[in-house]
């Protein structure tokens, strides 16, 4: 796991040019965040290339409140720099649109300042409407949310439209901002993993893994082989559940009642299986720093049979769905993400892979038992909703294969010995960890000071991918909206922070 490199440069111009050089050389921009560090603020950018994550640091002096925005040169930084502004007040000068994203604050209000020792005052959200972006005859803004129909997470979409097309779309995820960056601070290192599971609950296992990998990187801990296998089992079942959720929502959007019912039944069976393996339907408290919390609670052979039955049942419904013309008509050509935009943005997970991008970190930077088990990565091209679903089906079958392989490697030995590497003292410093969530790469940078968390930067795939929602509505109309949204399969919790 020691494939992260941290470099510090002293000058913000130098920082910028090194970052742009890495991206120009084919590196994938993976995020930028700010931490209050003594009297100043430190900016940290992450670029992934050739099996490594490179962190690039620069410190802004105590009186520096601005730096030249990256977004005009690196479009993927668009939301990251808005989040930096929201959380610290630092202004990325030349940013195309510095509206509040994760925090509903106006200039002059105190900011949470992650990394600073003090706790910020309670947030008083403002609810002012956003000025319209488009001007034209008959164009109006249709606000949708934050309270939306159905049992879904809160988010506000602002659709600017002349009536049917969606020429412009904006989001406000900040309504459900929970202040997670500050919440991590000062927690004991062990307790942080529980909070990581709650950053984005539907990808609890991936977030826990990413956090654990970061701390294990810092502490130089190797996970015992059987614990690594159990981690894979839970991570792949999480992927299956999420991909079924997307299939269910797409079928629901197309009003295919039986398909919706079938996929939701399968999804609940997966959640039940996960619950039987660990006690939690979302795989919570399974991953610990240095291993896993315990053995599978269900015999290996039984689990293998349950997995086989599930895959067989899902396959039949998958085939039927992908032959249902009224379903495919709604998916084909809908919400296209062009390959060049996907590559330039560094689109993650199934969304990226459906457009020919989207590295799978289980392969490019393998962890736990993946080097031993191998992962076949699916390559897509068409980039529309149908392709995103197809990519997920292929991934789902690969997940079942990994489940079988991991169970076989585990053998009949399901004892509780050797599942946890005794954890030494976690030294001070910064560790980097990642995991491939169902939504794509989850990236954690964990900074430890005297055994406690000083700063945790948790970057979900949802946060990185959701801005692409702006660009996929070429030619699509209102009634395509639920399809495009479902095909993204993201969680707002992981965006709002």
């Amino acid at each position, binding site marked *: 796991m020691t494939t992260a490199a941290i470099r510090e440069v002293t000058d913000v111009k130098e920082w910028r040019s090194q970052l742009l050089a890495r991206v120009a050389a084919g590196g994938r921009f993976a995020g930028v965040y700010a931490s209050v560090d003594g009297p100043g603020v430190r900016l940290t950018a992450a670029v992934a290339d050739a099996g490594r994550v490179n962190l690039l640091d620069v410190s802004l002096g105590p009186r520096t409140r601005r730096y030249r925005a990256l977004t005009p040169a690196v479009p993927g930084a668009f939301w990251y720099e808005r989040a930096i502004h929201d959380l610290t007040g630092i202004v990325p000068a030349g940013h195309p649109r510095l509206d509040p994203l994760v*925090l*509903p604050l106006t200039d002059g209000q105190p900011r*949470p300042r992650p990394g600073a020792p003090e*706790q*910020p005052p*309670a*947030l*008083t*959200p403002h*609810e002012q409407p956003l000025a319209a972006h488009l001007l034209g005859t008959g164009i109006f803004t249709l606000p949708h949310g*934050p*309270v939306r129909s*159905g*049992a*879904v*997470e*809160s988010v506000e979409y602002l659709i600017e439209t002349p009536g049917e097309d969606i020429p412009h779309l904006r989001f406000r995820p900040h*309504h*459900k*901002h*929970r*202040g*997670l960056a*500050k*919440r991590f601070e000062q927690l004991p290192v062990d307790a942080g993993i*529980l*909070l990581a599971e*709650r*950053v984005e*609950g*539907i990808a609890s296992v991936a977030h826990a893994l990413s956090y654990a990998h970061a701390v294990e990187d810092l502490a130089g801990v190797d996970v015992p082989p059987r614990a690594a296998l159990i981690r894979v089992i839970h991570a792949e079942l999480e992927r299956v559940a999420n991909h079924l*959720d997307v299939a269910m929502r797409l079928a629901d959007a197309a009003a*295919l009642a*039986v*398909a*919706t*019912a*079938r996929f*939701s*039944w399968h999804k*609940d069976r997966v*959640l*039940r299986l996960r*619950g039987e393996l660990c*006690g*939690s*339907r*979302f795989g*919570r*408290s399974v991953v610990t720093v240095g291993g896993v*919390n315990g053995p599978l609670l269900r015999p290996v052979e039984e689990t293998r049979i349950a997995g086989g039955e599930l895959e067989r049942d899902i396959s*039949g*419904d998958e085939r*039927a769905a992908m*032959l*249902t013309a009224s379903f495919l008509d709604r998916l084909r050509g809908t919400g296209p993400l062009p390959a060049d935009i996907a590559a330039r943005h560094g689109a993650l997970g199934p969304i990226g892979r459906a457009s020919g991008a989207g590295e799978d970190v289980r392969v490019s930077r393998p962890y736990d038992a993946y080097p031993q088990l191998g992962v076949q990565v699916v390559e897509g091209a068409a980039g529309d909703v149908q392709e995103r679903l197809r990519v997920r089906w292929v991934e789902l079958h690969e997940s079942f294969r990994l489940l079988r392989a991991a169970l076989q490697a585990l053998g009949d030995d399901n004892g509780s010995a050797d599942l946890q590497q005794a954890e030494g003292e976690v030294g001070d410093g910064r560790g980097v960890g990642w995991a491939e969530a169902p939504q794509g790469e989850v990236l954690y940078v964990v900074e430890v000071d005297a055994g406690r968390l000083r700063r945790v930067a948790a970057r979900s795939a949802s946060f990185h991918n959701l801005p692409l929602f702006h660009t996929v509505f070429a030619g699509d109309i209102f009634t395509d909206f639920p399809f495009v949204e479902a095909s993204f399969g993201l969680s*707002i*919790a*992981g965006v*709002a922070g």
Partner: protein
Amino acid sequence: MPWVLRGLRNGIVTSNYPRRADAYAEGFRGAVAVHPSARDLGPDVPAVCPTGAITVDSTEVRLDRGRCILCGACVQAFPGTFGWEAGSETAALARGALIVPEDITETDRGLQQLRDALAQRVRRLRRSVHIRHVDAGSDGTEEWEIHALTKPTYDVHRLGIFFTASPRHADILMVTGAGAHGMLAPLQRTRLAMPNPVVVIAVGTDAISGGLIGSTYATAGGVLDALPVDVMVPGAPPPPFAILHAILLALGRLPAAGNGSGAHT
């Protein structure tokens, strides 16, 4: 056409709960219990809980299920005092009833009053009930579990329970999440848009106490201070059966055996 046959293929997968007990609901690891013969009374016992759900005085250990996120740290550290409890009927009508072991003398009469008042209020809702859900800062899992209620395994439609988009149609307000400040005003507006009588259910430990997120600059430590809540269902997240139990508890529609005297040990 193939979908018609597919729909029939596996027969009925829907639970008979609450008419008949459901094996999955009863076997689910739904709560942490304090053993009657709790042995560990030291100051290190409360310290093991990441959400401060455990209190110890000289003679007794108490666990607040409204704070418990079922991480199992206490069960692992003090197996002589804490243990897993199977079952999904964890919802309660009063905040105090979530603390186990219950202080019977204190809560019993109060609970009866609460139950009577609620029964009086929901009498007119009869057997057709509409639910509106609002996420006030959840981690996204509670929404999955609530959504599952409308699907075949649980199928609340068979009980005359429906989800509605419009608060104007809604009888029950279901709230999830740690009470994000940015959602409190939309939450209260949704409540005000509903016609009385209204029953409010807080779904999940986060909604009851903030759970692990707790009270921060951005969250209110749950939604109990934001609006009057009638039923609380703990869990991180509570499984669909626990949420269904909470709905039926609110409506006074549970069979006599599980009439919701609150969390039972």
